[in-house]
């Protein structure tokens, strides 16, 4: 038994070493996969080892960003943290993170494990590792052919949360009815975060809204204000289920230029007001920051420290990652579902500069084999602001389908190009006449496109100059 464990760890660590040596692959899942094959009960050896606790993040969008933000805050506050930073969020990725940080006898030396966990993998991971905090970001439609319908995803997470010991605290998005419901349904203690309903933020696009019916009584939800997708100030007139009052709330959110800012008002956990600045565009990053901030406070991190740390946040690959090519600003964004794609389009429109757009769509398993979700993305907004765009270059295995989608959204055919070859597609975007190039890619297209981009353009770390001296 013990021998099997050691064998699993040795094999995994050799795989890790080889992957690092060859420079091929990132080695963020394969070592864990090998180890789990040799010794399926591996994860139970890590349960209880992090001295101060385990924090998991799950939900559809924003897992990587939220989890990385919290990990940064905890490190900044002086804790030792084990984390699956690269976004490998299946059970294999979690195992890899633990193996990497542990000895050959599975001993860990850390205060916290901060883990991003895929919503479909959540029940499997929590069977072995019991979290003390669970951040739930949101539930949107995502890769239906892989997860089944959204109802199924939510109920699987719900069931897993119910199984957790009573000392767990849930950190929940108050603005998403599908997340907020988890407090009542699991009976677990909850901390809510949210964005104060403000007409100025309200989005006109009511596309692909998810929860139109109340999860408790089946009545139709009424919204005072929509922020995006089904997020907003909601209420069920039939049974009274409504947006809970957040413990941590962002007020006066603005996004554009170099980042996103807001003021945080805290009522629960701590009382006070702090400025929040995140050097990445997109209002959705405020949600990620709020979740990390709320969780940090619940772990007794000083609020000022948490807020300060967020100002230096460096996005993970493809999370509105910024580059420079000559005088041209370039952003690289991962797109994987309608809500995330709509948010990325909103962020591009906010730049108010003429731009070339490259969209690379693949349909491998990790991207979702069914690409019909592209028709739930509100590309019609691009056609409304056509003067802001130069050319739309469509790439990836489904370049033609992407071009087709844009055509029916109202983009004239002469603005559309199809180029399946990534190299030529990236070059076309960089050499376009626009002052900005916006590059969007699905998961398996992100790596090849990102690699080409890195060779040609210089990565810009917006937060770099703003880092206050850290003692």
């Amino acid at each position, binding site marked *: 038994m013990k021998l099997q464990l050691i064998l699993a760890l040795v094999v995994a660590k050799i795989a890790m070493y080889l992957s690092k040596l060859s420079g091929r692959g990132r080695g963020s899942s394969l070592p864990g996969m090998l180890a789990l094959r040799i010794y399926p009960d591996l994860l139970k050896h890590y349960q209880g080892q992090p001295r101060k606790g385990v924090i998991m993040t799950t939900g559809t969008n924003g897992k990587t960003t939220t989890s990385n933000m919290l990990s940064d805050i905890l490190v900044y506050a002086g804790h030792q943290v084990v984390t699956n930073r690269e976004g490998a969020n299946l059970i294999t990725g979690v195992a890899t993170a633990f193996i990497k940080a542990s000895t050959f006898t599975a001993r860990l030396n850390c205060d916290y494990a901060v883990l991003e966990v895929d919503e479909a993998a959540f029940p499997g991971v929590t069977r072995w590792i019991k979290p003390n905090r669970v951040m739930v970001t949101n539930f949107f439609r995502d890769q*239906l*052919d892989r997860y089944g*319908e*959204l*109802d199924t995803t939510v109920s699987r997470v719900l069931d897993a949360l119910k199984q957790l010991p009573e000392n767990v605290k849930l950190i929940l998005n108050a603005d998403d009815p599908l997340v907020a419901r988890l407090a009542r349904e699991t009976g677990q203690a909850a901390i809510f975060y949210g964005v104060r309903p403000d007409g100025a933020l309200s989005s006109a696009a009511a596309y*692909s809204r998810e929860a*139109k*019916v109340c999860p408790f009584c089946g009545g139709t939800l009424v919204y005072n204000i929509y922020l995006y997708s089904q997020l907003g100030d909601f209420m069920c007139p039939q049974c009274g289920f409504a947006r809970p009052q957040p413990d941590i709330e962002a007020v006066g959110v603005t996004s554009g230029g170099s980042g996103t800012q807001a003021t945080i008002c805290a009522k629960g956990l701590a009382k006070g007001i702090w400025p929040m600045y995140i050097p990445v565009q997109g209002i959705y990053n405020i949600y990620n920051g709020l979740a990390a901030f709320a969780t940090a406070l619940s772990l007794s991190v000083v609020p000022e420290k948490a807020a300060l740390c967020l100002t230096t946040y460096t996005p993970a690959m493809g999370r509105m990652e910024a580059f420079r090519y000559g005088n041209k600003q370039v952003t690289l964004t991962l797109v994987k579902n309608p809500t995330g794609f709509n948010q990325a389009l909103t962020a591009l429109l906010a730049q108010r500069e003429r731009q070339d757009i490259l969209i690379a769509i693949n349909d491998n398993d990790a991207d979702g*084999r*069914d*690409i*019909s*979700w*592209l*028709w*739930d993305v509100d590309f019609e907004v691009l056609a409304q602001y056509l003067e802001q765009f130069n050319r739309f270059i469509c790439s990836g295995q*489904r370049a*033609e*389908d992407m*071009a*087709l*989608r844009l*055509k*029916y959204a109202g983009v004239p*055919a002469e603005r*559309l190009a*199809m180029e399946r070859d990534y190299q030529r597609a990236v070059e076309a975007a960089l050499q376009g006449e626009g002052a900005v190039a916006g590059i969007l890619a699905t998961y398996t297209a992100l790596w090849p496109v990102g690699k080409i981009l890195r060779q040609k353009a210089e990565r810009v770390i917006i937060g770099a100059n703003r880092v206050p001296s850290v003692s």
Partner: protein
Amino acid sequence: MLTVCHLYPDLLNLYGDRGNVQAFTQRCRWRGLPVQVKEVNLGQPVEFAEYDFLFIGGGSDREQALMATDLKNRVDALRMAVDKGLVVLAICGGYQLLGRYYRTPQGNEIPGLSLLDFYTEAGEQRLIGNVVIEAELAGKKTNIVGFENHGGKTFLNGLKPLGSVLSGHGNNGQDGLEGVRYKNVFCSYLHGPLLPKNPVLTDYLIALALARKGYAAQLVSLDDAIETKANQAMVERLSSKK
């Protein structure tokens, strides 16, 4: 003026169903044919006789049950409109609903609208993946591409299918048939969505709707370069797999 009825868009908008309505209306507009869309949701009044094209999509189980209850109250009016040649496209869950029943794994029969004489049984595993079928529209053979994702297996009882499966599962993964055709009603498991990538089918539906109004003129042809590429890319991918 062609009037399109998008039935229950609030409930049934899985898999980019909206794209089907968009393809129908855009291809009318690009030809200068006036067209309008009316979205009808649960409980709202609907006069099927007023419409030229009715679209019913698919939803999750819960949403589909809500729609079935609502539609049952309107079935007589719908049957009358269908008999008078109303052009209908029903996808996935909308397709299953028009048949006699859906038999659950426990053997319970959930009654459908019985507008068409086919039935559906729960399968052991979901049928998922890219599909190419061959259909005959206006006397011409054409390849129709799409993506299927359904748990139910549908059997036609001798009704005419939309096409025969070249690659993929189709109605049940057994008899090589996909979808169903009855009068001007077209049903299919293919989303993706169906109409944008299959302009021949879309134009056929438009022509049927126009003919029913007494406009039998030939449709102006459009530049379908992108549509054709998207269609052929999938046909080639699936035929090279074999």
